[in-house]
């Protein structure tokens, strides 16, 4: 731990928000943000990232932060490219919002370097971030302590939970949002009415559909798929409408359109 420089690789709204929050906290962060999930069959992002990685001064990078909603094979490939270049002391803070940290760690040569995290957007309004340790670290908290130290500039409290796909609030909010998408798909009510009902009928902080647009439909979908893969069964099956919106690239605020229209269109960037 020498320079406290962070490499952030991400593809969704959470990564975008984390990049802003880290810069705001005065953290030295190098960000690579892809607009939306990366397709495994598309070589361009990988070629681009590998070229960039080759140019980085890895001795200065203490922490790699991976916040992706892309398919696991994509995340695995990127993480392995990073591990091939990073020093052994570099800690990997990876999103456990769609895949347990234990599973992510299993892809690496040094799984003990992994710490998982999860947070529900909007990150700026959250006052806590969840962290978890993969089983491979056998209870050693050194890497977690380093993460908390390096990201101490953020205003969030770090709360440790047990490792599992989706952790606590990302999974819980995804379940609520998924139900709202089923209700919308089935015509149970209009989108605005579903949001109004949950805010006024049970004091939710945001309507579930406007919340989904803020979090990113890609993130919600990735969380549901990840939890479904770990748990099995029908309970976490994403609403077909949610799946179709993600396939259409309508991720929410980040892409200019999700359940609602958001004006600026930058999904094609």
């Amino acid at each position, binding site marked *: 731990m020498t320079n406290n420089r962070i490499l952030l690789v991400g593809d969704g709204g959470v990564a975008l928000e984390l990049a802003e929050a880290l810069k705001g906290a005065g953290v030295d962060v190098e960000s690579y943000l892809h607009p939306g999930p990366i397709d495994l069959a598309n070589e361009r992002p990988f070629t681009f990232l590998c070229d960039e990685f080759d140019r980085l001064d890895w001795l200065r990078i203490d922490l790699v932060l991976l916040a992706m909603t892309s398919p696991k094979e994509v995340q695995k490939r990127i993480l392995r490219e990073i591990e091939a270049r990073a020093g052994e002391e570099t800690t990997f803070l990876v999103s456990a919002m769609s895949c347990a940290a234990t599973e992510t760690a299993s892809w690496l040569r040094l799984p003990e370097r992994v710490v998982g995290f999860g947070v529900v957007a909007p990150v700026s309004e959250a006052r806590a971030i969840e962290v978890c340790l993969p089983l491979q670290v056998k209870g050693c908290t050194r890497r977690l302590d380093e993460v908390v130290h390096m990201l101490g500039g953020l205003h969030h409290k770090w709360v440790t939970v047990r490792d*599992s796909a989706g*952790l606590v609030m990302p999974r819980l909010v995804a379940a609520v949002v998924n139900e709202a998408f089923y209700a919308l798909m089935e015509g149970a009510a209009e989108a605005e009415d579903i949001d109004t*009902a949950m805010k*006024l*009928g049970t004091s939710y*902080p945001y309507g579930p559909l406007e919340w989904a647009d803020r979090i990113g439909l890609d993130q919600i979908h990735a969380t549901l798929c990840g939890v479904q893969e770990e748990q099995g069964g029908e309970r976490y099956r994403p609403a077909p409408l949610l799946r179709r919106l993600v396939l259409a690239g309508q991720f929410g605020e980040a892409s200019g359109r999700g359940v609602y229209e958001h004006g600026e269109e930058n999904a094609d960037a």
Partner: protein
Amino acid sequence: MRKVAVLGAGTMGAGIAQTAAQSGCEVVLHDVSDAQLAKGIASVERGLSKLAEKGRLAAPVGDVLDRVRVTTELTALGECPIVIEAVPEDLALKRRVFGQLEAVTSAETVLATNTSSIPVTAIAGELQHPERVVGMHFFNPVPLMQLVEIIPGLATAEAAVEAAVAMAELLGKTVVVCQDAPGFLVNRVARGYYGEALRLLQEGVADVETIDRLARSEANFRMGPFELMDLIGIDVNLAVSQGVYRASYEEARYKPSGLQERMVQGGLLGRKTGKGFYRYDE
């Protein structure tokens, strides 16, 4: 002045009667039991007095209270253009009550049901004029909660929906119109908040306090799922979950939690028994 009849003087009925009276309506509050009527009207008076103390009641408490007439005679409801039923959640009971209402009201009287879990279509199914039956789901406590779900059943006429919407708006509420589907909107979408929290607890991902704290501090919910279940009542919450699960032919997303059922069996019902996910009796 608008006239409205409220059937059933329990918590919801009294809350609806109070809200209607303070909105300027003339209210006929009916219950089969004199004792329940006395409790209901006392609850209306308490609610009005609290508002008056905070300076949020436009007229003196006595004047508002005078707008509520209590009765055990169903025939007294006949003169009201709209009846809001708030008797216990039991389909056989509600069907019987609506059958009786049909006998004492004109075919144009709008018959609204404050059911939270029974299909409006089922309540109206056996009536001669099911087209004037509409769901009007208020939330507890009625005077404070801003939302009313308006639910047309399969046979409900547009005029009945419009009358229910107008009534809810007269009471100062925000209306959402939703389908006659299990749990309507709020109870349906909220199932995940409780069900997923119970699963996370059972899987050992985090304990009760941590999940509640994260709900408040990470996701900005006003209350965590467990403290909220304790407030609602573990038995009430389980009954809603079971109802939605059964009505959906056992959709996996609504599967109730065995842990919750165990708590009900053990008498740990939340705040009302002093013990639930937290203790309140120490």
